[in-house]
C-alpha cells in the first residue's frame, strides 16, 4: 500500500529496474538508482506529454476481455467503478498489470493509464511487477503467527526455492484464523498446515495440483455446537 516503502508492493510503472542491494550486507532493498521508493527519484520527462486515453483503433483488446470489462461497466451508475474488477480481469490474462494490460483496460474504460496505475498501486492483489502465475499467500498476522505461520513461511520458501512460476507472499489476516497457520493458493484456503505437510503442499503448488485436498476450508464444519444439523 501507499505507506509501504519497501519497494516490494508499491511499484509504479512496470518497467522499473530490478531491486538490488546497493551496499553489501544491507538489509534494505533498493532500486537500482539507490532509492527505496520506486519512481520517486526519477525526474519526470517534461518533454513528453502525459499519456492520454489510448486510441481504441491502435490498441487491440482481446474480445473476451473487452466483453468482461463492458459487463462490469454496465453495473454501476458511474462506469469508473469497474476499475478494480477490470484490472483484475486484465491481470488474470496477462499475469500482472503490465503496461499492455493497463493500456487495454484504459482503452475500454476511456481512462488514462496513469489513473489506472494509481489505482492498482493501492491494492495488494494487483501486481505492478511481473510475478509468478501461481499466487500463494501465507498469512503471517497475529493469530496465524501465534500458531507457527512464520516457520511455515520460511519452510515453504525453502521448499519452493526461486520457482519463477510461484508468487509466494506474506499476507495480512486472510480471515481464516480458525485454520491457522494457513495459506491461500490461487484463492483456495487450506489449513491448519502441519509441519509434515509443507513438502507435499510445495509439490502441489509446483505441479498445479489441488492444494492439500483434505485440509480445504470449504469442507470444514462449523465449530459451534449449536450449529449441528437438526
Amino acid at each position, binding site marked *: 500500500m501507499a505507506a509501504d516503502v519497501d519497494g516490494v508492493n508499491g511499484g509504479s510503472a512496470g518497467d522499473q529496474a530490478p531491486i538490488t542491494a546497493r551496499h553489501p550486507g544491507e538489509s534494505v532493498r533498493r532500486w537500482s538508482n539507490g532509492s527505496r521508493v520506486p519512481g520517486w527519484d526519477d525526474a519526470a520527462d517534461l518533454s513528453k506529454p502525459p499519456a492520454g486515453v489510448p486510441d481504441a483503433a491502435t490498441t487491440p483488446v482481446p474480445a473476451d476481455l473487452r466483453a468482461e470489462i463492458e459487463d462490469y461497466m454496465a453495473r454501476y451508475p458511474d462506469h469508473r467503478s469497474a476499475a*478494480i474488477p477490470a484490472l483484475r480481469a486484465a491481470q488474470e490474462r496477462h499475469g500482472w498489470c503490465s503496461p499492455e494490460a493497463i493500456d487495454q483496460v484504459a482503452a475500454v474504460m476511456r481512462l488514462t493509464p496513469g489513473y489506472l496505475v*494509481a*489505482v492498482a498501486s493501492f491494492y495488494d492483489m494487483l501486481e505492478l511487477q511481473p510475478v509468478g502465475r501461481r499466487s500463494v499467500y501465507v498469512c503471517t498476522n*497475529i*493469530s496465524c503467527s*501465534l*500458531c507457527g505461520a512464520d516457520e511455515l513461511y520460511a519452510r515453504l520458501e525453502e521448499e519452493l526455492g526461486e520457482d519463477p512460476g510461484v508468487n509466494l507472499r506474506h499476507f495480512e489476516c486472510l480471515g481464516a*484464523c480458525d485454520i491457522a497457520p494457513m495459506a491461500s493458493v490461487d484463492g483456495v484456503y487450506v489449513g491448519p498446515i502441519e509441519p509434515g505437510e509443507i513438502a507435499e503442499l510445495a509439490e502441489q503448488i509446483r505441479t498445479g495440483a489441488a492444494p492439500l485436498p483434505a485440509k480445504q476450508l470449504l469442507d470444514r464444519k*462449523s465449530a459451534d455446537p449449536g450449529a449441528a444439523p437438526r
Partner: protein
Amino acid sequence: MTGAILFADIDEPGLATLDVYRRRGGYGPRLLKALQMPREALVEELKASGLRGRGGAGFSMGTKASFMPKGQIDKYLVCNADESEPGTFKDRELMQKSPHMLLEGMIIAAYAAGANRSFIYIRGEYAQQAVIVERAIAEAKAAGLIGERILGTDFSLELWLHRGAGAYICGEETGLLDSLEGKRGNPRLKPPFPANQGLYQGPTLINHVETLATIPHIVEMGAQEYAAIGVQNSTGTKLVSISGHVRRPGNYEIELGTPARELIYGLAGGPGEGRTVKLWFPGGSSSPVLTGDDLDVSYDFDSLAKAGTMLGSGAIIVADDTTSVVDVALKTAQFYKHESCGKCTPCREGTNWTVKMLERVKSGEATPMDLDIMASVCENIIGHCLCVLGDAMAMPVGSMIKKFRGEFEAYIEQARAANPWGSGHAPVEALEAQGALA
C-alpha cells in the same frame, strides 16, 4: 442460552442454495410482511430491536436507517463484506454457508432505507466465497426476489457483488465508498456522513454482513422478542470468532452478555495443557488488550467499553503465557503500518515509527525511554486523523505497553546484553573487512 439464530442451520447441506434456504423458512412470509409494512414502521421496528451494528462501531442499525433522507432521489445500500479486521472470520462462514440470509436482509434493509440500488463489497481474498454469493444472487434474481417489483410489491432493487483487491482500509466505510467508485480507497472527511452524501454523492446506508443477516430474523421474531435476548443495550446474539492459543478455534454464536471465560474456556477450550491466558484481544486486533485477570468480564458492548476496550468486530484472539508481548505488539504495529493509506500524517508516520521503535526493542538498541516515546506517539495519533485506522494501532499497542511495561523493560535489557552492537552497527572487525574504515 437461547437457541442459535444466525447459525441455527448453518451446516445444513445445501443451505447455500435457494431451495434448501426456502425450505428452512427463508424468503417466506417474513419477507412479504416486511415489504408490506410502511417504511417508517419497519425502521421503528429495527430501532426497537436494539440491534447495534456488528461491524465495529456498534451504532444502532435502526437509527442509522432513519437518517436516510426521504424523497425521490437515488439512494444506495452498501453491504460491508470487507472483513479484514485481524482475527475476524465470521462473515466468511456466514456468506459461504448461508448467502441467501444476507441477501434477504439486504432486500429488507434496502426497502427500509428507500434504496433501489445496492452493492456487496467483498474483500478480494474471499474468491471462493465470492463465487458462492454470486451464484446465490443469480438464483435470487431468477426467482424474482431481486429485481423489479419484488413479490408483487412496488419495491424494486438492483444488487451487485463488487470484489475488492486487498486493502484493509476499504473496510472503513468511506474508504470503501471511494474504492467502490473505482478510486484508491482513501477515507473521506466526515461529516457529511454517508447517509447524506455517500456513494456517487447519494444518500447511502452502509451496514455490515452480520447486521444485515440478522434483519430477517428480527422481522420474523418481532422486535420485542429479539430485544429480550442479551442484556440491556446489547441485545441479541453475536457471532464471535475465537482464534490464537485455544483448542477449538472457530465461530460461535453467543448471547450478548455471556462471560468471556465461558467463551474462551467453555466454547473454544482455552489454551493448551498447563498453559494460561496471558492476554486477549476482545474485538479484533484494533481493540485494547485485556489480560488473564479480566476473563470474568461480560461480553457485551457496554461492559467491554467499561473495561477500557471494545467489542469491535467480535474477534477474540487469545495468546497464552508462552507468548512474548513484544512480538504481539510488533505484529500488530506492522499490520497497521502496512495498511495505513498514508493520507493523514499522524497515522502514516506514527505507525511507521512505532514499528521502528519496536524493532529497536527487539534488536537491543532501545532504552526504556523509547517506551515513553511510543506511548506519546500513540497518544498523538488518537483522534487526529480522518479515520480511526491509526487509533486502531495506537490503542492496542498503547495498552500492551501500559499493561506489560515490566516485560518490555526486561526484554530491552536482555536484548541489549545479548546484542551490544545492535543490528545497525556492525562490530569494528566487520567494518574493517568491508574497507569502510580505511
